[in-house]
């Protein structure tokens, strides 16, 4: 009797770079279809940030002197308050993308009961997570284009600076945020009801990075929180390039901070996610919520 049988088990699935890319595309496409299925929500995602900016605009009007927003100019070097908050809203929408589009979306899959079955497929978690965020990134960017168009048409939003340079600064900022999002997604997996955690974190992160106001106006005891967030330097640098506002630190230093944040946060975020995922698998809590 021949007992010399091969013990090698071959997986039926052929995991390649192409299969990973197909998975990313499939998850992104599913999310995009979901976005299109609610047209009123899709339309309102453009209107909502404008509605959110309106009270800030009128607050600005109530402090306006005959020579413009001079109090604001003393902090920023510009009286163009509207462009300042519009840019802040656009950039902080990517913070919302990190908190709601990456972290909370994972929790939604958990609640829908599809996370466990998705994770059983021979696809890397990174591919699933990247696909999850791509459609959100696209919709966030489309919404921002809509907001810019409305700002340009109705509110006189204009930029004088180098748009390409601003985009180049935005890339490391977004990648750093992306890394942070991975780590935060891991945290969300450990919490049973993450709504408050996500909502409060999103709000505080945007607030202290100065999406609505120059962080110099913060009380001295709160300023260190703002200075500890890489996003603060991203917002500050981009506003400086586009609107000519005065920066917290020299522009080159702010860009260097963003690059360091990108290099550190991307692997760190993924490492935290990987560690928590292993813990969840061992404890068998992926399907619990």
């Amino acid at each position: 009797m021949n007992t010399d049988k091969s013990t090698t088990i071959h997986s039926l699935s052929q995991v390649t770079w192409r299969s990973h890319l197909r998975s990313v595309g499939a998850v992104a496409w599913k999310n995009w279809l979901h976005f299109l299925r609610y047209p009123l929500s899709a339309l309102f995602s453009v209107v909502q940030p404008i509605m959110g900016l309106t009270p800030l605009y009128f607050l600005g009007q109530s402090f306006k002197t005959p020579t413009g927003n001079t109090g604001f100019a003393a902090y920023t070097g510009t009286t163009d308050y509207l462009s300042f908050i519009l840019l802040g809203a656009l950039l902080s929408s990517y913070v919302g993308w990190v908190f709601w589009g990456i972290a909370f979306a994972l929790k939604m899959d958990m609640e829908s009961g599809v996370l466990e079955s998705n994770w059983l497929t021979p696809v890397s978690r990174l591919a699933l997570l990247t696909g999850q965020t791509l459609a959100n990134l696209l919709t966030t960017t489309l919404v921002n284009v809509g907001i810019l168009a409305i700002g340009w048409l109705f509110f006189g939003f204009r930029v004088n600076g180098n748009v390409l340079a601003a985009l180049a600064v935005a890339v490391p900022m977004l990648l750093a945020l992306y890394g942070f999002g991975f780590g935060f997604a891991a945290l969300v997996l450990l919490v049973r009801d993450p709504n408050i955690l996500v909502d409060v974190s999103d709000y505080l992160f945007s607030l202290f990075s100065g999406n609505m106001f120059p962080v110099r106006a913060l009380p001295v005891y709160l300023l260190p929180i703002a200075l500890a967030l890489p996003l603060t330097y991203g917002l500050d640098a981009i506003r400086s390039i586009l609107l000519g506002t005065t920066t917290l630190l020299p522009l080159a230093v702010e860009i260097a901070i963003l690059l360091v944040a990108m290099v550190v946060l991307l692997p760190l975020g993924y490492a935290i996610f990987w560690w928590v995922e292993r813990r969840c698998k061992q404890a068998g809590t992926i399907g619990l919520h």
Partner: protein
Amino acid sequence: MGSDLIIQRSLRSELRVLWVMAHKEWLIFRRYPAWVMGYIIWPLIFPLGAIFTARALSGPDARALPAFAALAGTDNYVGFIVIGLTVYAWINITLWEVGFHLRNEQMRGTLESNWLCPTWRFSLLLGPSLTKLATSLCFLSLAIAEYHLFFGVPMLAGNPTLFLLVLLLVIPSIYGIGIAFGSLVIRFQEAHTMVFLVRGIFMVFTGASYPLAVLPDWMQTVATWLPLTYAIQSIRAISLQGAGLSEIAADLRMLAFFALFMPVLGYLLFRFTERQARRTGTLGHY
């Protein structure tokens, strides 16, 4: 042979339904301690955005503050913003909680079966609303205490009786809006979008964080049709300027009018939705 109903409906049975629904809602609330944390944290952090923006707009040497004071009638922008945003937060909570109640039942699949019970259907919404009212009042009390402690804004500093009178008069309006909204939500279904739209309207038109005088005329006209405008205006007058009954009498009259009108509007919309749902058979759809 008569077809007598086994169930005896009476005032007592309706009150029992109210109690049971309110109690069920309370049990759900207690099951999620994170919600209680939200009630403690949000009043503290929610006004910070507007307060720091106002601080930045006034300038390092407060050079632009006189411009604000001329429009607002006070240079205490922290108190001005905190009061406006507290009342706004109240309507926001009501929209999410009361407004979403029927929708949540619809999504859980319990709305249709509950509505088949031999009871007044409005009780099924009114009962949970009572619990939401109680929890909202706890939120409001916490907010008032936190603002006094951390922001130095004594909201009860003026005439506390008048302050309570304004609160009592605005309660029926807020819950009337909540019930009207909840009814529309199960009719039109895109609930989150509707909350963002309606709360956005209140935020923009009621002058929650800025003086109404900066609004264009047409927006000021819209503001006069919103009960919250009068509530915010009168509480600011009582707490920040020490206003008495005669100074806010006009606001109180408007609040009394809305206190009668909004619950009736809420009930009529609820009845309309109920009839529509029976006719089209779409109560279980979402």
